[in-house]
């Protein structure tokens, strides 16, 4: 059996799932687009009395629950949006810090000579 450590390490690295930032942002957009569930929907049918009864039941029993759910959805949506913005700001800070580290390492090497 042939064993090649570099090939095994490549295999291991390929198997590591990387955080896909774009995919996360797409998901956040989908959450934002669908977070509000409409509760006022037309009731189909011709029987006016029945439609009135269904409408009253919806207003009494279902509407408050849907509105509560929508409030929760809005909070979750806001939370995910804040996370996405935080990731953006952290990435910008990491870029700045990496540039600073590179410059300092270069200076340290020069001074150590």
């Amino acid at each position: 059996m042939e064993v090649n450590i570099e090939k095994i390490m490549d295999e291991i690295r390929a198997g590591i799932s990387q955080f896909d930032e774009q995919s996360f942002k797409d998901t956040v957009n989908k959450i934002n687009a669908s977070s509000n569930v409409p509760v006022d929907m037309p009731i189909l049918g011709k029987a006016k009395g029945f439609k009135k009864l269904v409408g009253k039941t919806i207003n009494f029993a279902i509407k408050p629950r849907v509105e509560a759910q929508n409030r929760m959805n809005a909070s979750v949506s806001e939370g995910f949006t804040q996370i996405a913005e935080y990731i953006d700001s952290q990435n910008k800070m990491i870029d700045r810090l990496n540039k600073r580290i590179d410059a300092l390492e270069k200076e340290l090497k020069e001074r150590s000579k």
Partner: protein
Amino acid sequence: MKKIAFINQRYGLEVVGGSEYYTRLIAEHLKDKFEVEILTTKALDYVTWENHYEKDVEDINGITVRRFNVDKERDSAKFNQFTGEILKPGYQRTAKDERDWVDAQGPFCPELVKYISENKDNYDLFIFVTYLYYTSCIGMREVFEKSVFIPTAHDEPYINFSIYEDIFKKCQAIIFLTDEEKEFVQNKFNNSNIPNVVTAVGIDMPEDYSVDDDSFKKKYGDYVIYVGRIDASKGCDTLFEYFQEYKKRNNNDLKLLLMGKDVMGIPEHKDIINLGFVSEEDKFAGVLNAKALILPSPFESLSISVLEALQVETPVIVNGKCEVLKGHCIKSNAGLYYKNYPEFEGCLNYMLDHEDVRLEMGRLGKKYVDSFYRWDIVVNKISELFEKAAK
């Protein structure tokens, strides 16, 4: 028979430390070819250098050991602060700073340096082991013309101090432990003109060692093992962080066994088991039964523990930021290396999920050790170099 002296900061059967253990192994294996003495301090503790041994001269395994008092213990808090100051970017380090730093690094032992100076004609060679400490940096200045250097060097900030230049350039011969060390030192100091060899140690197995000993497997199941001082400077803080993260993410019974002196504190976790300082027999039995030996240290000059693991056909998982350790893995095809947590997890799971490959890596590891780390090869190379240097 030529008379030679090894100089190391500590020496003794109970001393735990790679450089010190290496010195003892080499000295004991050369005693039939040379009249060997050890010049060392009375310190046992490598943090404070507090005087521990009482005798000035003693015999350890047939070798005369001369011990000298450490004049000043190290205050590690002050020393760390001083180190931080002179390593700050922009700080203009002076020759005095560097000399003060070496004195503070210690072990501060002017008695030993004086002995070398006053007795240089009584020895054919002085072999200084490990560049970093006062004993080598200041001691070698008394006898450049009779010095062999075993620097155990790696890329760390202190090697850039100009106070060390002379000892890398004025010695008569150098022994490098690895190809990586040789390349690093010669690139840094432009000293390829100095006669040198690359050789390390042979790997000794205890007499009671048995390849059929499965006692640890029966007791602990599947585990990986760390052998050595349990210290943040050896990467153990990261090891604990990574292993605990691994246990959160992976539902298995894998354990981490530790064998060595704890100087940093070990997190409480049901799958992290500290066995402390164990006998050689238990050490080898523990390593033999492990899925892999883990070495998280970012700075190693050789790693005897890695070679011992490979000798018993146990593959290794090492810190990939250490060129020497990574070099062992690639040259032997018997180890994996990581540079971050995902790779650490990947290496562990690879060893658990590919038993056939793991076993083959073990076999390749033994072949690697048998080819390059046998005492007859090591002793011959060193003896030839010493004979040339002593002429």
